[in-house]
């Protein structure tokens, strides 16, 4: 569920030091554990300041879930997060199923959200030196703003908006994660000092001066920092130490994204700078206002053009198999534009520029498996219009179930029937492309 980015800075708080903080922690739940008589732990998804997140199988309801368990001393924060999420109903929110205790460990059972964190997505783009297109930026920002609007309408400030707390899930779903620092606007505050992640903290948050009723403006500021990063893949207020970063937030003028990225629409550039205004009252007065601007900007951005021929991307680490599939594709659809990629990284680089009509995906590859690649592509919406077909010598039922959740329902075993099955899939893809007038 929660995809903690290893390189991402942790949220900071001067709240009473969490027991165990800074020390290596012992895992709360491990693979094979049976939690609460129903949840069989499958794997660890991540660990953070508050606790550990594992994937589990719910034997009673026959589904996968995520379980977040609190490190000792963080039980109250976990309860608060669960209660906050339980009060909100929206696709941008994770559904909370259950809050309970197993032996001495407090845990919350939540919906398992598949996808990729925005932080991971940005990191990959930065490594490939490829910025998001403006329509992509607007889609991502609109999804996050819609989620924040739900939170703010409920009278809650998230207080830790940052790329690693945003999950991009299949079906154009953008999910806000980690409500561990959230606070009701009606709350007087914990008196715990500055709270948040240094790179995203508004001046009033750094000074611990955010007033009750105006804490949502801290989220708007963080959203501005995030928007600048999504647009340019650079942080607006860099610094080597926390103090450097805070100092920049307090005194440096918000940079103009156009200085780093010339194709930024002027209105978007103005909006991003206004979100990062030093004084809360100089920022847009609500996330709803920001949403209106983003939607207007999105309406004026153009759709990418479509290719004339069926495009097929073959992703397989075995060159013998890739060559065979390439020939089979050529035999069935002679006009097809075929590309091969021998690993997931190469596939992602190709999909960035040219999402194919059909992607033939090997499931077992070194470094990043086919299932992980599919999750990444669906989560980032890089290939929403692409038909993905799994091709493998062996597929475990778990993997196939996961792929089905990602809308990937066709699996072709590598074997005698490969050519015929491939031909059928190709003819379907060609028909679909023709009917869409691509």
């Amino acid at each position: 569920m929660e995809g903690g980015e290893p390189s991402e800075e942790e949220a900071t708080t001067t709240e009473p030091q969490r027991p165990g903080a800074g020390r290596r922690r012992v895992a709360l739940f491990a693979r094979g554990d049976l939690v609460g008589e129903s949840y069989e732990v499958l794997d660890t998804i991540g660990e953070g300041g508050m606790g550990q997140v594992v994937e589990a199988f719910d034997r009673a309801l026959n589904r996968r879930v995520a379980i977040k368990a609190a490190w000792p001393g963080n039980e109250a924060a976990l309860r608060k997060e669960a209660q906050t999420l339980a009060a909100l109903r929206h696709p941008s929110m994770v559904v909370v199923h259950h809050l309970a205790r197993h032996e001495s460990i407090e845990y919350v059972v939540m919906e398992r959200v598949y996808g990729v964190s925005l932080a991971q997505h940005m990191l990959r783009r930065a490594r490939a030196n490829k910025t998001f297109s403006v329509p992509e930026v607007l889609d991502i920002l609109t999804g996050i703003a819609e989620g924040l609007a739900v939170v703010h309408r409920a009278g809650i400030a998230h207080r830790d908006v940052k790329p690693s707390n945003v999950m991009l899930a299949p079906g154009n779903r953008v999910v806000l994660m980690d409500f561990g620092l959230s606070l009701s606007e009606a709350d007087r505050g914990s008196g715990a000092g500055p709270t948040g992640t240094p790179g995203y903290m508004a001046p009033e948050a750094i000074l611990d001066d955010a007033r009750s009723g105006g804490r949502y403006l801290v989220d708007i500021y963080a959203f501005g920092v995030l928007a600048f990063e999504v647009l340019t893949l650079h942080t607006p207020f860099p610094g080597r130490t926390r103090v450097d970063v805070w100092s920049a937030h307090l005194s440096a003028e918000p940079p103009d994204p156009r200085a780093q990225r010339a194709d930024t629409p002027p209105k978007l550039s103005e909006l991003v700078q206004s979100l990062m205004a030093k004084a809360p009252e100089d920022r847009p007065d609500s996330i709803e206002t920001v949403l209106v601007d983003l939607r207007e900007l999105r309406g004026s951005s153009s759709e990418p053009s479509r290719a004339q021929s069926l495009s097929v991307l073959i992703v397989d680490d075995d060159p013998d198999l890739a060559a065979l599939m390439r020939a089979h594709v050529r035999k069935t659809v002679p006009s097809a534009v075929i590309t091969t990629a021998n690993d997931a990284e190469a596939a992602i680089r190709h999909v960035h520029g040219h999402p194919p009509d059909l992607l033939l995906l090997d499931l077992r590859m070194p470094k990043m498996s086919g299932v992980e690649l599919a999750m990444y592509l669906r989560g980032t919406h890089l290939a929403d219009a692409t038909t993905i077909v799994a091709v493998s010598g062996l597929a475990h039922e778990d993997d196939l179930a996961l792929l089905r959740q990602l809308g990937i329902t066709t699996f072709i075993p590598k074997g005698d029937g490969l050519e015929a099955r491939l031909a059928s899939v190709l003819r379907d893809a060609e028909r679909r492309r023709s009917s869409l007038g691509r």
Partner: protein
Amino acid sequence: MVDDDVELELEELRRTYRVSLPAKVDALATAVDARDRETASALAHRLRGTSGAYGLSAVSIEAGAIEDALAEREIDWGAIAARLESLEEEASRVPARPTRR
């Protein structure tokens, strides 16, 4: 014309794969001898899928049995070595050129 080209390409691919098969089986044997589970499993998986796709079902079945055995919690290297012999035998029976169907 395209059909002819593709058929020729497919024939050449099948021939090349068959010629390279002994080297692929050798690589798997080396990994098994070295008790390198990860490499052996990856090579067996690759052989299982690709040989099957090239129409070499018997080779695919033997490679699949090795991949499955390598996935067991407790690996029986003796049983795997025996399976490897069967795989080598099946691979040696594959003619360099595919028989015309």
